[in-house]
């Protein structure tokens, strides 16, 4: 005889079911959704979940990438293979173009990460997107822990953390006024480790920079950065070759790597399981500007 115990899902299956439900809700209720794609492991898991949600039909929305101009070539290569596999349209909103067109201003001090905000909002506005999926997880950062699955944005793209819609059961409220849009986070309840376990169980292709490799790097502000033409060395900085890997895939001028021998998914999971630093604390320069850096960017419309 079967018992209730036979009808339990594993935590990964339950997370997957919840995320697929969210993808389908958005497809059913919003006029013009889009998947924001950063190239990182979370975005790739999102593409996989979207693929599963609509199979055997195609994913019914395009993929939007905000290109800082400083992206890792390995990440762009993976992006292209994924978009082809999905058969989706790829829209690239370039920070470079946004600067040229006067949409955002490069004062030489603002990071490309911050310039992504205006570039993204412009792309959402120009294309008339009413819902934009993001790969944000609540475990990433304490401001994110407060974010709803459906995160309402006003006509300026702003997030108002004090005035969020309560979210009950799995009943998401997708009501919008003209000019407003929704950010939707299907991975809200996933943790970094869940993402890795899922990548392993699904055998999902991720950019090679996540695996240990030899790379020419230098140290800046306590982080190991990749040598590149976009990142001129400052006085006293020396490049040397080390065995490293990345824990996140952002702007290569700000995203640090860690020394690691982990060259398989199993080894990465082992390493993450005993890591003492968060992925952002370890390797993201953009979160170090102030204690509320993420919250402030999100209020302005960051993903």
């Amino acid at each position, binding site marked *: 005889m079967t018992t209730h115990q036979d009808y339990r899902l594993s935590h990964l299956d339950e997370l997957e079911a919840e995320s697929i439900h969210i993808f389908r809700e958005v497809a059913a209720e919003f006029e013009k959704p889009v998947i924001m794609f950063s190239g990182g492991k979370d975005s790739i898991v999102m593409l996989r979940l979207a693929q599963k949600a609509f199979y055997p039909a195609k994913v019914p929305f395009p993929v939007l990438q905000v290109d800082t101009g400083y992206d890792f070539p390995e990440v762009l290569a993976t992006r292209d293979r994924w978009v082809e596999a999905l058969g989706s349209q790829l829209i690239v909103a370039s920070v470079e173009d946004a600067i040229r067109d006067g949409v955002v201003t490069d004062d030489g001090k603002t990071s490309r990460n911050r310039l992504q905000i205006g570039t993204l909002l412009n792309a959402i506005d120009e294309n008339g997107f009413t819902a934009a999926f993001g790969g944000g997880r*609540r475990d990433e950062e304490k401001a994110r822990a407060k974010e709803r699955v459906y995160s309402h944005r006003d006509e300026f793209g702003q997030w108002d953390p004090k005035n969020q819609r309560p979210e009950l*059961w799995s009943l998401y409220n997708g009501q919008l006024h003209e000019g407003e849009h929704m950010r939707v986070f299907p991975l809200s309840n996933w943790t970094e480790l869940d993402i890795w376990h899922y990548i392993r169980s699904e055998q999902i292709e991720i950019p090679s920079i996540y695996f240990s490799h030899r790379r020419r790097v230098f140290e800046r502000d306590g982080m190991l950065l990749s040598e590149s033409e976009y990142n001129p060395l400052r006085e006293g900085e020396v490049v040397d070759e080390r065995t490293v890997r990345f824990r996140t895939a952002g702007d290569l001028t700000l995203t640090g790597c860690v020394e690691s021998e982990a060259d398989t998914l199993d080894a990465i999971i082992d390493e993450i399981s005993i890591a003492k630093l968060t992925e952002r604390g370890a390797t993201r320069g953009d979160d170090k500007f102030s204690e509320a850096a993420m919250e402030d960017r999100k209020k302005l419309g960051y993903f």
Partner: protein
Amino acid sequence: MDMLRFATAGSVDDGKSTLIGRLLMDSKAIFEDQLEQVESTSKSKGFDYTDLSLFTDGLRSEREQGITIDVAYRYFATPRRKFIIADTPGHVQYTRNMVTGASTSDMGLVLVDARNGLTEQSRRHAVLLSLLRVPHITLAVNKMDLVDFSEDVFRKIQEEFVAFSSKLEINDLEIIPISALQGDNVVTRSENMPWYEGPSLMYHLENVQIAADRDLRDVRFPVQYVIRPHSDEFHDYRGYAGQVAGGILKKGDEVIVQPSGMTTRIAGIDRFDQEIDEAFPPMSVTVRLEDDVDVSRGDMITRVNNQAEATQDLDALVTWMTTTPLKPKQKLKIKHTTNVVRAVTKEIQYQLDVNSLHRNQEAEELKLNEIGRVKFRTTQPLMLDAYERNRVTGSFVIIDEATGNTVGAGTIV
């Protein structure tokens, strides 16, 4: 490994943040860089201790004012289970936050301060968790270190709570004496309380049986999205995508599509590119039917002899969540499973006092954070079950037509 979702409840100074901080720390969900940040903020505020609540108060205005504004979700895992904590603030927007956190929870964790015993708030927490049919309740009697780990103090609170909860719908209750600050009975059993023979809090969280909490009797499949690829390979494919809300669906089963009433059989169940034999809650699957019947989003697939009630008249307990009161004749939108319909308030039958459980039948409206029994009439039929039977088909949210905001939550009586 499975997953347990729990909501915390407690008043302002009962040590809730400290307990959550400790659970996260002891399960290694807090990293060194986060700890350093909290330590340095504590120091700059002039504290001579590390304020663990800084882990959970994520927003600038919360840190400035030292208050928690809204529900936040926290995550940790042990080798046995993954946990999602709905961390609900104690004092602001009290009922609304509790109801939000409790709506998805398998367990409610109520904290009381051993020095104060049961307060009005602790009773309210228990009432709300019982109204929301949270299947398991844990009462953590905290700050036992401040009452010399006294067994008498604990027993008195225990007896009082058991007596009180017997009036409520609480099926599974565990009461644990702890010190969140010192870690007694949080992860390991405390040597300071040899008289206590029950589990530590962590052991209980890891082992409480939640397998039987889901409804496997009544087949309920709200159709969410119709999948029609129109590709060469899948030219005639027509699948109904959704998340199973109840029961077990099997290939070959005879089913009925509500509200149209057409009967057919399940031709197959797909989960991505694999066909599976059966589907159960909370799986997201795609169901194919034998006959080419007209099925769309908002319909529900059930069994001929076990249908949901299709009706335009809703009778529900409503928690009101906004400053403008709910009144009779008010026009609203209701989202129930995959339907959004227009509705009107027919009658406010009573307002429930969550302290005394008194039903105030004179009430003419429901104010912010009030709970009451309300009748609505909808423009189209919804397929309902009583909330006590199914938390998915028995629940709905109320949306303000003008602002688009979520203004209320309802459970079908």
